[in-house]
């Protein structure tokens, strides 16, 4: 009986951990995605075509000093969190009509991984 219990428990644990890591996001993969997809416009510490991302998690939208945000983002009252970043990355225009990013990330796991990376650069250096 114990054997059969173990037989079913081990796969459940393995499946659960992979589901858990999928829902949590992988910051290492997120950094690779950031450096191949976001790097054209963004960097962690400098404003470029897009605003810098250091400290983005927990920050109000439109708050990076020295960056020229669209009027839409400046006026939109939102704080960047897991949920709002996921909405933004999946469809920026749907979340904040009139924004100027335009770029979306269609794969949910990619968004999770990117958000995990953005969280990791939101701790002070």
């Amino acid at each position, binding site marked *: 009986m114990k054997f059969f219990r173990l037989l079913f428990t081990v796969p459940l644990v393995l499946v659960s951990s992979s589901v858990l890591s999928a829902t949590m996001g992988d910051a290492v993969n997120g950094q690779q995605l950031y450096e191949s997809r976001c790097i054209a416009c963004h960097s962690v510490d400098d404003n470029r*075509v897009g605003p810098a991302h250091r400290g983005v998690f927990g920050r109000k939208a439109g708050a990076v000093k020295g960056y020229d945000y669209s009027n839409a983002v400046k006026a939109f009252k939102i704080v960047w969190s897991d949920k709002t970043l996921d909405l933004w990355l999946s469809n920026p225009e749907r979340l904040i009509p009139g924004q100027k990013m335009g770029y979306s990330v269609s794969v949910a796991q990619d968004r999770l991984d990117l958000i995990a990376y953005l969280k990791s650069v939101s701790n002070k250096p």
Partner: protein
Amino acid sequence: MTSAIENNASPRRLFLGNASKLALSAGAIALLGGKDLLAAASPADMKSDVGILNVAVGLEYEGIAAYTIALKSGLLSAAHLKAATKFQDDHKAHLTALTATIRKMGGNPVTEKSLDEYAKALKVDQLKNEEDVLSLAARLELGATNAYLGVIPAFKDSALAKIAGRLAAEEATHFALLNFDLGRPFAPTMSFGA
């Protein structure tokens, strides 16, 4: 910079020397400015598309600045100087076409920043050798490729989406040549614009 790179008999090092022969027709890009766009688009749609095109203008300005810095760095071999000049010319042609399109649509193109601002944002003070310069260029070209591919679904006008695809293809060419010349692995299959 050592002449070992130019003297290196490895085909991959000679690859970029032939980059100028792989140009797309400048006339093909000029079509962007001449095409009758958005015959039936709403003002809101046009404004949205102009916004996206202006992001592209910003990208191209930064790319042009990056190559200016690269060309002036004194770190590039003759072969790489030739390739960098060609790639910069491509970005200048993209910029010309994009700004013409924005004006045709009744918008105002964003303006260029100073070279110093681009240099600071790109951390060029950390570029110590030719490989650093080529790596930066490759990183920016890969980013530009994915940026153009990533904004395609956002365009209201499918003609502009097609142009974004064409520009992405050109950036991908730049990236592929630089990546190969750096001796790095090929990009994974289906990795662009995912």
